[in-house]
């Protein structure tokens, strides 16, 4: 499949707008539109779906805050059983044998309420619909001039709709964490917050190593609160264990792969066309071609309805669907 990054998205919007190089529409404007469009698509369709297994209740506190960026929880699990969703007005009225989580409800602002009021710290897992962190301009990750580190070129990124620019780091950002055993893969994510410092997050099982680069990337935890993803690095060392921050990334036997994943949309790829169409619509409005812009937005809504069913539909099969009648 074709992977789009911010550069690709801008090119495709410019294809349709008819302006190949920045003139009437600046690159900043198109980049801002791309990020706004991705957030709008996520909020309307609920397509950016995450699983947060790090949550816990607090003794005596009814509410639990979801991870930053979560719109709402569609389902909540405790002790391998999914809680029933209620409304706040039902609190205390439905039968419960104890004060372990049995019911939940959503409160606007990424908070859930639990009934009955928990009497302990209970681990819960929330299945949430989220706001994407933002698409950055390509950071061009590569080996740093300090060869244990990962270099990045200058890139723009957005946190909660505010744009920041991170200067190039030629020497690179040092990797950290557990050693990765010989002949297995380890993965690290580079993240950045509004403080403009690049942070390193390691995959949870780097100490055991992974069988493939894809599995190593899948082992990365979710992006930290108030951070946006820059990119990922996977490494395998066939000569010895890989010691992040010590083993050179171009040492004999070391193969490193750098992916500018932060520069790609976070919402599922079937919605990427909508990012391009919304970008086109915004450019048409700026040109006062309102009827054309409205038509494009209507197409986007049709696209969202087409795919949202796949994401929102949680219709199970009935027992009869599996009987030979």
């Amino acid at each position, binding site marked *: *499949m*074709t992977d789009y990054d911010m550069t690709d998205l801008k*090119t*495709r919007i410019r*294809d*349709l707008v*008819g302006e190949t190089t920045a003139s009437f529409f600046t690159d900043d404007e198109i980049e801002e539109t791309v990020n706004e469009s991705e957030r709008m698509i996520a909020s309307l369709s609920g397509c*950016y*779906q*995450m*699983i947060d297994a790090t949550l816990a209740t607090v003794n005596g506190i009814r509410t639990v805050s979801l991870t930053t960026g979560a719109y709402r929880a*569609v*389902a909540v*699990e405790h002790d*391998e*059983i*999914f809680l*029933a*969703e209620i409304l706040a007005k039902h609190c205390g009225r439905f039968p419960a044998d104890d004060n372990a989580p049995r019911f939940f409800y959503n409160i606007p602002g990424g908070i859930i309420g639990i009934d009955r009021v928990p009497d302990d710290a209970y681990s819960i*897992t929330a*299945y949430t619909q989220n706001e994407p962190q933002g698409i950055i301009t390509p950071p061009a990750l590569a080996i740093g001039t300090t060869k244990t580190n990962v270099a990045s070129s200058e890139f723009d990124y957005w946190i909660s709709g505010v744009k920041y620019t991170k200067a190039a780091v030629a020497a690179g950002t040092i990797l950290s964490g557990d050693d990765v055993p010989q002949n297995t893969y380890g993965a690290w994510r580079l993240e950045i917050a509004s403080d403009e410092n690049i942070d390193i997050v390691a995959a949870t099982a780097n100490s055991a190593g992974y069988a493939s680069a894809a599995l190593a990337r*899948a082992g990365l935890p979710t992006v930290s609160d108030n951070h946006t993803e820059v990119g990922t690095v996977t490494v395998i060392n066939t000569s010895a264990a890989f010691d992040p921050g010590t083993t050179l990334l171009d040492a004999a036997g070391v193969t490193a792969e750098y992916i500018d994943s932060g520069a790609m949309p976070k919402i*599922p*790829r*079937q919605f*990427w*066309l909508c990012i391009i169409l919304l970008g*086109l619509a915004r450019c048409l409005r700026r040109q006062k071609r309102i*009827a*054309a812009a409205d*038509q*494009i937005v209507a*197409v986007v809504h*049709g696209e969202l309805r*087409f*795919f949202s069913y*796949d*994401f929102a539909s*949680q*219709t*199970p*099969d009935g027992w009869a669907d*599996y009987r*030979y*009648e």
Partner: protein
Amino acid sequence: MAQAWPQLGAVRDRARKEINELVPGFFTDAMFNRWINAGIDDVAAKTHCIKSIDAISVSGRATAFSGYAVKTVLNSDGISLHKSNLKRMGHSPVNSPSPQFWCQWGQFLVVDPVPATATTLTVYIADYATALSSDTDQLGTTAGLPNEVHELVFDYTLWMAHLRDRQYAAAAGIYMMYSNKCLLHRSFFDKKYADRQADQEIPDRIVIAQPQ
């Protein structure tokens, strides 16, 4: 050099004829190639016409998968798991510690009950297409699209070309046609019901309803 359908070059040449620009000018070849590849992705996403069968090892509640959608899940005995939803997980009757129910959440396959040990499931997935890069790459053998949806890629390409050309009314018409065809093809690729036993018996009498 003449291109043979359904090669990338042939799709592009046909689109140029339709848009009445035989030599690259307002529409570059790179643009057409981008639209054709985007069309391939969109057709695969809308029709679910590319099906992969993957072996996925699950050891927890949720396991990541790659593709547009999970369609069917079989356990290691070749028996299909029952499609459920999140709210029913943990509440449905189970008779073993192995997964018996599944649903999809985002890019995760969610199973119930949570397996006691790692188990390999056979997962039927509506999968991504492969991008075309050379003019001789084909919609079928390279991208993976079945023959019956190749025309949809052409429709998508024309739609994009009309948008660039600011022919918005024509673009709207092509989009409606393209979208309806996608829906129709989805119904072919995602059948809902199996035949019944009665469908294999010859009935005593067949009555064809006449219009009133």
